[in-house]
């Protein structure tokens, strides 16, 4: 628990808990998430997590980005996407006890695969694909709409892996997570 009485959603050093992340990528996620949150809020901020029908509040601490960091993350779209990955991975860790174990490339980026903490990932047969989206300035309805879109896209998608969709609204301080399917 922190001063605000809410348990923490820890964005920093994700690689210490998520075996699929490297220190440099974990740093990238933390920096970009800090830039996104700093656009609208002061640290610490309380975020609402709606996860598979449950709701909770978590306190998030982030460093105020300096000019170098802001300059490095000048591209809004990249920053929001990367920041959403950092926040989503931290959120599925505390809510679903899942951590990033594997990554596989796609043409335009990469898919992340999560698995229960402590799982050995000798293959991808039982891993869960994480579908992430970020919204910088939209309100709650935008977050909910984007989650519905993401779920529909994932259902229509070609992968037959179970998946989790996660949408982060940085201004709204909201994270919406939903399991898409057990198996298709």
């Amino acid at each position, binding site marked *: 628990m922190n001063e605000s009485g809410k348990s923490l959603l820890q964005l920093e050093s994700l690689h210490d808990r998520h075996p*699929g*992340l*490297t220190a*440099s*990528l974990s740093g*990238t996620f933390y920096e970009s998430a800090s830039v996104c949150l700093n656009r609208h809020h002061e640290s610490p901020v309380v975020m609402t997590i709606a996860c598979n029908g449950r709701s909770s509040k978590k306190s998030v601490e982030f460093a105020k980005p300096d000019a170098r960091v802001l300059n*490095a993350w*000048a*591209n*809004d*779209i*990249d920053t929001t996407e990367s920041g959403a990955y950092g926040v989503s991975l931290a959120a599925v860790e505390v809510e679903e006890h899942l951590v990033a174990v*594997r*990554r*596989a*490339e*796609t*043409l*335009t980026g*990469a*898919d992340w695969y999560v698995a229960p903490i402590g799982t050995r*990932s*000798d*293959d*991808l*047969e039982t891993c869960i694909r994480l579908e992430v989206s970020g*919204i*910088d*300035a*939209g*309100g709650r*309805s*935008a977050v909910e*709409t984007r989650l519905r879109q993401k779920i529909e*896209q994932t259902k229509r*998608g*070609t*992968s*037959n*892996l179970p998946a989790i969709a996660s949408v982060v609204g940085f201004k709204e301080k909201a994270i919406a997570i939903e399991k898409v399917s057990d198996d298709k």
Partner: protein
Amino acid sequence: MTWAELHSQSERLAIEAHVALKSRDTRRALDLYRQAADFEARALTLVDPSKVRTRGITAVSAVALWFKAEEYGRAEQLAYSMLADSSIASFAVEELRNLVQAIWTEGSKLRAGVTFIPGQVMVSVKGGEVVTGGAPLDLIVDRVQTIQAMFYRTIEFLNGASHRRVGRPTRELQEACRPWLFQSAPGSYQFSVAIQKPVQPDFFKKDIQPEQIAQHFLEIVRASSGDDTGELERLVPDETYRGTFLKLARNLAPSGKAFERIEFRAAGEAHPVTLGVESRLSINQQLRKKSTPPTVTDEDQEEIRGILRALHLDKDWLEVVDANVTTRIVGLQDAVDDVIGPMVNRSVVVRAVRAGRNELKFLDIELAE
């Protein structure tokens, strides 16, 4: 080494490549992607064929890494060998086909002898009169013109140019960032659009990353088609630009007669941005809120249908002809050339409000498909 060990090496190198790309060290990124592809291709050979998901994901990952390393020949070769394998999972088959399509386009771009800004947009027009590989010419020409106009507008907006109401983009812009159309593998009616790279190295403002132009274009189309006006306001804070993007997006969207939807996606991206009939309705609602003064009620408004026969943006009027009756509408407000120009000699619907006995004031115009 096992699949897990080789895949882990590939992951680590691919992450490093991604970070190098982020810091704009392209040469290092390509080298790292090449190494990552090599490890992933070796991992692929070790996957137990009974592990269908792992094998499919690894195959896609290996081809994508060769593609990102710009080793198009190796990417194509591996993709074909996987596609020829009847045991490969169906989800992987679809993703591999998308990759092959992207490889072909990259090959065409290389053969064109012109350098392009990284990133391109695949466009699919579907439903209605559209058949696999074919579509009514006017339908496609209209969309291509509008996509070109939106790309120019996106570049002008990102480059901080003031909003242009009349005329075409500057000759400098048209010559520096010429959009190219590439044929894509048929599936509904598909093509891709790539932007020629400006020769002048400082053509773009210092903080603009040219490779993000296609992504910005897609984000603007996505935000224009949604119900959430806040997202478009954030992407395009300038109200005049925002209005123009909305009108251009409406020109792209179907009314449902000639075609049912148009999809845009970054090359190889499985999830498109889609404009359907409902998008047109949503954009119309947004535009009505914007263009209708609060004092004007629905009863005050008139709808004039006919052929847009004359247009004078400088003198602020247009004329619609229907059954030899000409109606002049004045006060074109922020109507802009690239939105309204392509509608000349086409069937249109104009919304206007009667300002006096003989004067109709313009509110909005759209094509009557």
